């Protein structure tokens, strides 16, 4: 039932769009290369439902604009004071009840139509219950990074969310429970869904069923403090097999190697472990990202820098160089300790 509602809806909307814009699908295809975060290039049911509604709203408001703008332009040109004006005041017209009635009732009808279309999409997106095979994720917003926990799969990771691709015929959506550890944040990956806020003491939920594999970008959309700008979102949509492999790998405890024991000693005897967890070791801090499989991630510092040894070293030495105002302190280590620590972190695959 659930999937039938939106597709009927989309069919009717695209029919309207064909009339007005030419072709809805062509519009969406043309929009995608503009930006990886384009709201008009949806790839998941919530984003597609919103896209359909937005085309309808744009068509209605566009038509109103054209009509009223033409009236304004016509009156400005037609009723301007001419150079050969006779100086007599124009006829003094005070009003007309029929005309007033007309431009009250027509807008009311338009509002009713817009409201019904809107209410329908609200229901489609907000009233969908999670199916049995849905992936459950808890996303926790922190200043200024994202913590992801998969309670049913026993995985904890940070900043890069992995979800399975969803076949429209047999959907495997991901339902995300949104929490905050400190201030307000907002989860917004435009191609997958509209934004939903993460508010402390006020749990929220959202869902997505991405239908194409790939990396989807976004970022925090509610001002949360100094580094709100570099609290970036990355969602990795993977095939079922890849996703299962990723889960298996993330479940493993950290592999420790004797070759980097000096770095591990430094990690475990300095402030690092106050905030970071490396599972299978004594490090079990919760304030910062879980580092058990740090090297499986493409980026560090919530997407602010790519995960290269140079960036990692710079990040430990002076986080402000990458992300001024980040809560990660500069560790003030000696050069050789910094090298040893970086080498240790690079083994956390």
């Amino acid at each position, binding site marked *: 039932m659930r999937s039938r509602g939106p597709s009927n809806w989309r069919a009717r909307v695209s029919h309207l769009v064909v009339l007005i814009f030419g072709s809805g699908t062509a519009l969406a295809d043309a929009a995608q290369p*503009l*930006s*990886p*975060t*384009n*709201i*008009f290039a949806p790839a998941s049911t919530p984003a597609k439902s*919103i896209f359909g*509604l*937005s085309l309808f*709203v744009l068509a209605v*408001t566009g038509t*109103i*604009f054209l009509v*009223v703008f033409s009236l*304004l332009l016509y*009156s*400005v040109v037609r*009723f*301007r*004071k001419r150079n050969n004006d006779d100086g007599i*005041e124009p*006829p*003094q*017209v*005070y*009003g007309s009840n029929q005309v*007033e009635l007309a*431009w*009250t009732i027509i*807008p009311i009808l338009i*509002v009713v139509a817009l*409201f019904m279309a*809107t*209410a329908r*999409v609200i229901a489609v*997106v*907000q009233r969908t219950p999670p199916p049995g095979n849905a992936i459950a994720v808890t996303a926790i917003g922190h200043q200024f990074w994202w913590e992801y926990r998969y309670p049913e799969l026993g995985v904890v990771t940070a900043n890069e969310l992995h979800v399975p691709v969803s076949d429209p015929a047999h959907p495997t959506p991901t339902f995300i429970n949104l929490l905050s550890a*400190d201030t*307000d944040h907002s989860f917004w990956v435009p191609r997958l869904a*509209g*934004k*939903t*806020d993460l*508010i*402390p003491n*006020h749990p*929220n*939920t959202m869902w997505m069923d991405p239908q194409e594999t790939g990396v989807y970008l976004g*970022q925090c*959309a*509610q*001002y*949360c*403090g100094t580094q*709100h*700008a*570099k609290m970036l979102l990355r969602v990795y949509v993977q095939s079922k097999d890849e996703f299962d492999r990723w889960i298996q790998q993330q479940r493993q405890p950290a592999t420790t190697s004797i070759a980097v024991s000096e770095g591990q000693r430094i990690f475990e005897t300095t402030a690092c472990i106050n905030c970071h967890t490396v599972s299978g070791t004594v490090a079990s801090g919760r304030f910062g990202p879980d580092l058990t499989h740090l090297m499986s991630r493409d980026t560090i510092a919530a997407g602010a820098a790519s995960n290269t040894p140079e960036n990692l070293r710079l990040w430990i030495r002076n986080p402000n160089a990458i992300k*001024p*105002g980040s809560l990660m302190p500069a560790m003030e280590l000696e050069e050789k300790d910094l090298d040893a620590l970086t080498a240790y972190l690079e083994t956390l695959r």
Partner: protein
Amino acid sequence: MSTDAVVLPRTELTSRPIVARLHDWVTTVDHKRLGILYIVYALVFLVIGGIEATIIRIQLIRPHNDFVSPQVFNRLFTMHGTTMIFFVAMPVLFGFANYLIPLLIGARDMAFPRLNAFSFWMTAFGGLLLYFSLIGANGLYGAGNAPDVGWFAYAPLTSQTFSVGHSTDFWTLALLVSGFGSIGTAINIVATILCMRCPGMTLAKMPLFAWLTLVMGGLVILAVSPLTAAQIMLLIDRYLGGHFFDTQAGGSAVIWMHFFWVFGHPEVYILVLPAFAFASEIIPVFSRKPLFGYPVMVGATIAIGFISMSVWAHHMFTVGMGSAANTFFVISSMTIAVPTGIKIFNWLATMWGGKIEFKTPMLFCIAFILQFLIAGLTGIMLAAAPFDWHLGNSYFVVAHFHYVIVGAILFTLFAAFYYWFPKMLGKMYSETLGKLHFWLFVIGFHLTFDFMHIPGLLGMPRRIYTYEPGRGWDTWNLIVTIGVFFQAAGILVFLGNLIWSYVRGKPAGNDPWDAWTLEWSTNSPPPAYNFYSIPTVKSRRPLWDLKHPDDPDWKYE
């Protein structure tokens, strides 16, 4: 009534020492002087807020720019928003209301002149408190720091945990103090309009300006009070161990949002109703026709006043209110488009069949109609909650509300400046400079705010001090910033025109526009007591009746 404009003896004001004249300004309770004080005060803050906006736009001109640090950027947008709303828009509109309401309704002064002076100085003190944070808010990091919590200061960012030092306190106290000033002025406006009208001026014969200002005054009383309450609750949280908004102790961040927006959305109408008021006086005069559909315009105004109290949570569609609440606020927000649309149609019908003169005030009003139309239509997009899940908190919403506040409110304010400048100062402004100002500003406005919608559609959130390349946002941000310089040039021409015309302008005469409302029947500038004798009116356009005794309005109204 025709004897209202009399030749006045020059007062001794000009010959007195400057200290004595300044003392007169500080101790004045005259509504016209307080009006001018409000306006000048707001213009000073307009320049300050404009400089802040310019720095913000320079920082965003390209990705990964480092013109200012994130800390400074966050303070800039907080100060820009707070300044423009509370210390530019509200004071300047109160200033015009103060100056014009007694003149429009044929009164000698406001109902409570001393409350009027008290309210102005409270507002002035509030603005100074906000900026005193720059030297007084010694946080942990050294001497001054401005507030950096955003102009709607969402909890728990304002708690002691996340906002160390006193910058948030200065923000809170500034709004608290100026809020008392606003409530005082609002009470005064409502009392004046209800009680001080000249003989013959029933409520149905008031200029529409007075109706719009009356509803605005009522909204201020209703809307500023919850904001003031919320500020007191925040102070209790910060200093007396309260937990209203303290999420770590079971408080609610969402309740702050409700408190803020139950003020914040009526606030939009508090600002835009005076804009409608200016347009409703200026458009008829330069179209040479009475306002079309006056009774419907009054009805629409009252409808807007009521509906605007029930739409606040459309600012909170992404907060997770549940589908029922979201649906309610969709219908209430969309409903307000109906009375607003009626207003646009009535202005168009006023122009229809007239003889439109393109003086500077009228140019600004025509641009206002177009821009307010667009702002209303983007407002409908934002009212469609699912669309808002994308657009809310993106640059699209920033473009939308600047379309309202600049494209509608500031444009009609410029129209009001030019229209009433001859009355307030007795001198005519330079029409050439006025038109130069108009074209510079209209070009700058559209470069900045038209193109600002696009990065929002492409996923750019607001309040970010920098952004990643490769998101398709770069070109749009460049264009947006270029537009700012046109607007800044326009503002300089405007201020230059005001000063040059004040010093060098030709005498304007009492009625330069051949207009129809009472303020044009008295001297320019009006004497301290406004009218030689209190006028008696028979219609909404008393001066039309006077100028056309063979065809007076009161026969038809």
